[in-house]
């Protein structure tokens, strides 16, 4: 409390809020309240009387320009849980079945949702990671929003089930709170090393959509978007978070629920001409036909299906056609997501710093500082990792150099090089610790010989 008093002096902050809080907190124990107040005041008085003017007072954190509205504090886990509920609401779905198996750092999401049953979520602690995604797939088949959540090693266990969800084209949201690996690795430390696993980590050609949240509050919006893509395109969506985002908290402008996107699901009900793989021409999504619907009794499964009838088929040309259809469906999501924008700086120039996920803050501040030094750098931060926004290649080519800082050994950089044949360079940190702003600034300077 003494140190807090000194801090308040250094940063020129009012003591009143803290003093009121102490009195309220220890209302029943006035002697404790007084002791705390005395310590706080003593710390503050020390700042005023000691000769330490180089430290303050007057290091004032200026108010930032923020959108008007009502704000509260939210953690990444809360924002993600609420985003899933908001997504369920936007899709007009009655139920969400959230199935998980205890794993650090993902369990927090299970705990949060377990306490929100009154909002139409049923949580299920399964016997293992495979059963958790299996139950979510079963729930999706039965017409609920199926969601599962895990971390890297659990994600590996869910792999075969993801293939089933892709083959049966069922909507599913899979949250991966990434941690250091391989294997058990560093369970409590953040890493961004599951990107390859999310995008490519399955047997056969098995595409799905991959999104990443950048900040604690962004978790809310990304969760809604994951539900939108999953239900509109009848596909599993992997939402990448990480240990850092799961615990991070920040101010959040409470959204106006009426202004959130709406994307009501239309369950198929008409038996005329129905088969389970009859694709919607624009999205290539198959119909969502729930058991319980008369006249739509049908069978789905992991075996290859005939494009025209939905029956089992081992026909060579049909398999090629279905493989292409699955790929085209996912690639087509690019036409239904926003164009990639530049988070800071110009849309062309000497250097683009391209990131994804929880590195947002460090990259943003790093680029900001570099620009204050007169360096021509821009910050681009990706939410959509598969498919990429359709203008991304063209945007990246407008920069002389592309720097991709990641908390892994170089995954997004490889995906960008493969997709766009651009000379992107990696800047990698795998210490289980977030980037420091200074590290980003230094990396920028280094690339531009400054």
């Amino acid at each position, binding site marked *: 409390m003494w140190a807090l008093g000194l801090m308040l002096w250094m940063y020129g902050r009012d003591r009143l809020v803290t003093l009121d809080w102490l009195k309220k907190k220890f209302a029943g124990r006035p002697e404790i309240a007084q002791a705390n107040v005395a310590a706080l005041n003593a710390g503050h008085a020390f700042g005023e009387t000691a000769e330490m003017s180089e430290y303050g007072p007057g290091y004032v954190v200026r108010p930032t320009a923020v*959108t*008007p*509205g*009502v*704000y*509260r*504090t939210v953690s990444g886990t809360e924002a993600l849980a*609420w985003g899933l*509920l908001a997504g369920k*609401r936007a899709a007009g779905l009655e*139920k969400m*079945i959230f199935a998980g198996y205890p794993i650090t750092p993902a369990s927090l999401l299970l705990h949060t949702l377990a306490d*929100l*049953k*009154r*909002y*139409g979520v*049923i949580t*299920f602690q*399964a*016997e*293992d990671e*495979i*059963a*958790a995604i*299996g*139950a979510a*797939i*079963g*729930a999706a*088949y*039965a*017409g*609920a929003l*199926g969601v599962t959540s895990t971390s890297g090693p659990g994600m590996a266990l869910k792999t075969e*089930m993801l*293939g*089933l969800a892709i083959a049966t084209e069922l909507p599913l949201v899979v949250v991966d709170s990434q941690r250091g690996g391989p294997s058990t690795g560093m369970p409590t430390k953040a890493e961004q090393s599951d990107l390859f696993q999310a995008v490519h980590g399955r047997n056969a050609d098995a595409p799905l959509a991959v999104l990443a949240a950048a900040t604690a509050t962004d978790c809310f919006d990304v969760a809604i978007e994951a539900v939108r893509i999953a239900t509109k395109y009848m596909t599993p969506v992997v939402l990448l978070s990480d240990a850092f985002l799961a615990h991070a908290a920040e101010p959040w*402008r*409470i959204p106006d*629920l009426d202004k959130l996107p709406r994307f009501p699901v239309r369950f198929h009900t008409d038996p*005329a001409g*129905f*088969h389970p793989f009859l694709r919607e021409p624009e999205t290539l999504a198959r119909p969502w036909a*729930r*058991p*319980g*619907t008369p*006249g*739509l*009794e*049908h*069978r*789905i*499964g*992991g*075996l290859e299906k005939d494009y025209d009838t*939905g*029956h*089992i088929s081992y026909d060579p040309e049909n398999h090629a056609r279905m493989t292409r259809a699955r790929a085209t469906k996912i690639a087509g999501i690019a036409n239904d997501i926003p164009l990639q924008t530049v988070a800071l700086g110009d849309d062309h120039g000497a250097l683009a710093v391209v990131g994804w996920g929880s590195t947002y803050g460090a990259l943003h501040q790093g680029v900001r500082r570099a620009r204050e030094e007169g360096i021509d750098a821009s910050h681009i931060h990706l939410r959509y990792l598969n498919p990429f926004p359709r203008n991304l290649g063209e945007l990246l080519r407008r920069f002389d150099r592309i720097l991709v800082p990641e908390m892994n050994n170089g995954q997004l950089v490889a995906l960008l090089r493969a997709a766009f044949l651009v000379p992107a360079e990696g800047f990698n940190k795998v210490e289980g610790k977030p980037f420091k702003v200074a590290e980003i600034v230094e990396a920028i300077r280094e690339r531009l010989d400054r």
Partner: protein
Amino acid sequence: MTVTTITDAELQPKDYASDQEIRWCPGCGDYAILKAVHKALADAGAERERTVFVSGIGCAARFPYYMSTYGFHTIHGRAPAIATGIKLANPELDVWVITGDGDGLSIGGNHMLHVLRRNVDVQIVLFNNEIYGLTKGQYSPTSRRGTKSPSTPQGSVDYPVSAGAFALGAGARFVARSVDTLQAHLVGVLKRARAHRGASFVEVFQNCVVFNDGAFDAFTAKDVAADTQIHVEHGKPLLFGAGKNRGLRLKPRKLELEVVTVGEGGITADDVLVHDETNRALAHMLVALEPPAFPVALGVIYCSPVPSFEAEVYAQASAASAGRGAPDLAELFVTKEGTWTVS
């Protein structure tokens, strides 16, 4: 795909069959089980649109494709997990899990354990042929010790698991057994399983004509069946044999069954145990009986219902929302710690 017309008229067994060509080997026991399921559903007046068959991988797992109900052919061993999700999303559905000895007791043993102990309201029909048929004849977890197969040319050395004992050990509240060739008996058992609220486990001894032909002949062959099978029925004496004069009783002063003959050595009908399907200890003894010393117990061996998993889950969910009215997400965003306004 043929669109089936829905009528309220009584459905016949054939109405539960799909239009798909059946791919099981000629003579496979699976045909008889399929027929029994069609009959059981017709007898029970099951609604096709409310019925879902979920399977894993294996010969048995092709089952859903041959049904005119909803069906989900999933991945190896995992059908109970998917069935659990289906029941959680819509408890009104009548869900069946079709599995085999490899699917349900090897790769899927963990899920089988948990779907039974949770008591999810599904019917689990385990086709036990003591062999891996679809992958061409490797020994399975229920194969008897010494089984020669492509993967065990000198005979298997591991001991088999008993499906019935596993189910009881996992906490199943309904355990029954039948044989593919006992059509009427099998239909009766399947109807009991369907009527039971909670997880019902039905083991069907099923002959694989290609890779394990005659595996169950010791108690299913016509000439020996009467003396090697005991058809248990709740409240009735545990009698078997062509003359129904052989019975099971507890050995004096021991917790051990023995076979006795009524009318011999002073044994009367009153000495024979009466089947009590709610008695778990008796069920454990019955599933353990093996020929030649004992008959194989068939029928509903154990049935002692408790509320199902999903019923309990939904009871909690409705308790959580009771009296609060229609939930509004905006209410969720309100916080004790307070909000602040930026204008």
